[in-house]
């Protein structure tokens, strides 16, 4: 690929990403400002429930990882625990409820369902392990 083509393709990918990024940022800030006080009642610090809630929230959203990192960073600033945010970021790009029809169409029903179910479970395990290892090292 030539440099010109590469710049053009990257700019196109970037341009395509921007409406979603701006929309998600607007939405997250509106939700944060509205429900800031409720977060602490939802996320209690429990390893299982916090990661489960984070993973569920990430599963119903779908997109490129960078958006979830920015949302996650913002939620971290709001005081939401890292465990829930990690689970959220993990499922954001590995569990695609919205993309399930597309995946089943190309790769088959069984593959898509098994893969997404496993990814959901793995997201919780990885988020718990990430926090344990961060505290360990």
């Amino acid at each position: 690929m030539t440099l010109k083509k590469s710049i053009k393709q990257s700019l196109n990918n970037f341009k395509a990403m921007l409406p979603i990024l701006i929309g998600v940022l607007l939405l997250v800030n509106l939700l944060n400002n509205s429900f800031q006080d409720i977060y602490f009642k939802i996320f209690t610090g429990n390893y299982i429930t916090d990661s489960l809630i984070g993973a569920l929230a990430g599963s119903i959203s779908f997109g490129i990882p960078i958006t979830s990192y920015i949302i996650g960073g913002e939620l971290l600033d709001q005081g939401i625990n890292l465990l829930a945010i990690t689970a959220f970021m993990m499922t954001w790009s590995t569990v695609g409820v919205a993309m399930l029809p597309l995946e089943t169409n190309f790769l088959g029903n069984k593959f898509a369902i098994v893969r997404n179910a496993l990814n959901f479970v793995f997201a919780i395990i990885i988020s718990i392990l990430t926090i344990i290892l961060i505290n360990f090292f």
Partner: protein
Amino acid sequence: MTPKKLSGKIYFLITVTLIYLVAYLFNENLFFSSLQKTLEMFLKIIPILIVTLGIMILVNLLITPERIRKHLLDKSKFKRYFYFILFGIIVSGPPYIIFPILKDLKDKGVSNDLLAVFLYNRNVKIPFLIVMIYYFGIKFTIINSFLIIIFSIFNGLLVKKFTD
């Protein structure tokens, strides 16, 4: 002349704008504080987005799906796993581009475990890691990325067990 069809992304942005209009009608303070926060956040991430774009250009210049596809077939099982992990990490693109490529590979004989390994490693994106480091630190990024790569192998093995 037919009107140009709006993409889902633009519909999403229009929906968010409408939600903001409703917020403005009911709570002016909420509207302005959320808008201001979004602007501040966006300005804060602009330098990181520029670096990300630079890395994306470099990755696109050096690595193409076609080039990688050539290297994925006719390897030993261990090498295939290794290459599919790499393939998952370095190839970027929306699902409607990625799924047809994977379908093509599947038709050429690539098994489900390798497709699952590839899809799981899409979570480790080199151009975006800088954003993760910025928000969560280098320790978090290394540990999380390492776990994703290791678990992608378990993921592949389990997908194979349940789907073959």
